[in-house]
């Protein structure tokens, strides 16, 4: 199943400038693995050995995956994933 993933500005160097990309998988973790195949380098920006890095927020629809099942969160057709950065700047 293909899911749309919204990419924040700081990671668009890895997606050829695209603000939305597709990736396939039945869970958030699978989608990130597929993203890594399509856009190498993106996984380490998002995950460390404990899971989602502390300052990265991954949403399915309006909900942070930390409040769902984390990387095991199951996806259904039409779900949209958003990677939301911490704030930067003065």
């Amino acid at each position, binding site marked *: 199943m293909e899911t749309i993933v919204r990419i924040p*500005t700081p*990671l668009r160097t890895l997606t050829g400038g695209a603000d939305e990309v597709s990736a396939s998988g039945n869970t958030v973790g699978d989608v990130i693995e597929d993203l890594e195949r399509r856009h190498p380098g993106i996984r380490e920006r998002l995950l460390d050995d404990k899971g989602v890095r*502390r*300052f990265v927020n991954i949403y399915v629809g309006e909900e942070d995956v*930390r409040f769902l099942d984390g990387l095991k969160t199951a996806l259904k057709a039409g779900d949209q994933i958003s990677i939301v950065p*911490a*704030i*930067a*700047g*003065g």
Partner: protein
Amino acid sequence: MRARRLESVVDAVGNTPLVRLGRVAKHVPDVEVWAKLEFANPGGSVKDRPALRMILDALADGRLTRAKTLIDSTSGNTGVAYSLFGAALGIGVRLVMPSNVSKARKDIVRSFGTDVVFSDPMEGSDGAIRVAREIVEKEPERYFYPDQYSNPSNWRAHYDGTALEILDALGDRLTHFVAGLGTTGTMMGCTRRLKEHARPVQCVAIEPAEALHGLEGLKHLATSLVPPIYDPTVPDRILPVSTENGWDMADRLAREEGLHVGHSSGANVFAALQIAEEAQRGGRGGCVVAIVCDRGDRYFAPMKWERRYVW
């Protein structure tokens, strides 16, 4: 001892204390490491200095009048400062910030009567800058747009304030100065002044190690809109710091020094200790000052996604 008696809250800006870091720096006994506590400003952050200076300079030359509204993009601390001084000086304030700024920050600025406009959280601070520019372009006569990223009053506040205070307190002992790059005002202003000092001072800028980071207030310049006030030839050196190292040092400062500081301050002190370790190894001794930009409680209030998550 003499208590300070001030006519207005604007007079409480600056003259912040320097505190020696004894515990986190105990492994570098020949190097003094000092934290300049900018959270002691009335708005709780280093941003009080540039915000006040930009307002006062614009009032002085007529760019700002009480008939205008001050508008700018800010991820927080500058907005708190504008709001506070706007209230104190009778100037309306409108702020553009990404909607994922913490609730505490939104509540603080609104408590001063400030009007808040939200920009796309996916676009970060650069998105907020673009929205602010669009609003001003539609009604330029209605607004004063200080544009902290382009306004020379930003760095001059540090040239005439922060740097002089550091020299006054430490004089010729000072060997290194450390500050983060956000608008770059602190680094530009302090470095320019410290370079005029008779003794050489190494000025080190901190930037997030990665484009996607959690050091709020700092900019990864290679992937951001570069602030027009930034001159890359000014810092002697740029040190990248990871989000994890900044956050962990902020935790240590709270537990070991009683200084509960924000993440960018953690990154500054982390880098200051790296520099102190180099100086210790080199057998030269030294005296390092790091800017502590704000307090950690500004980042406490849970955002939506933090409800059940322990940072």
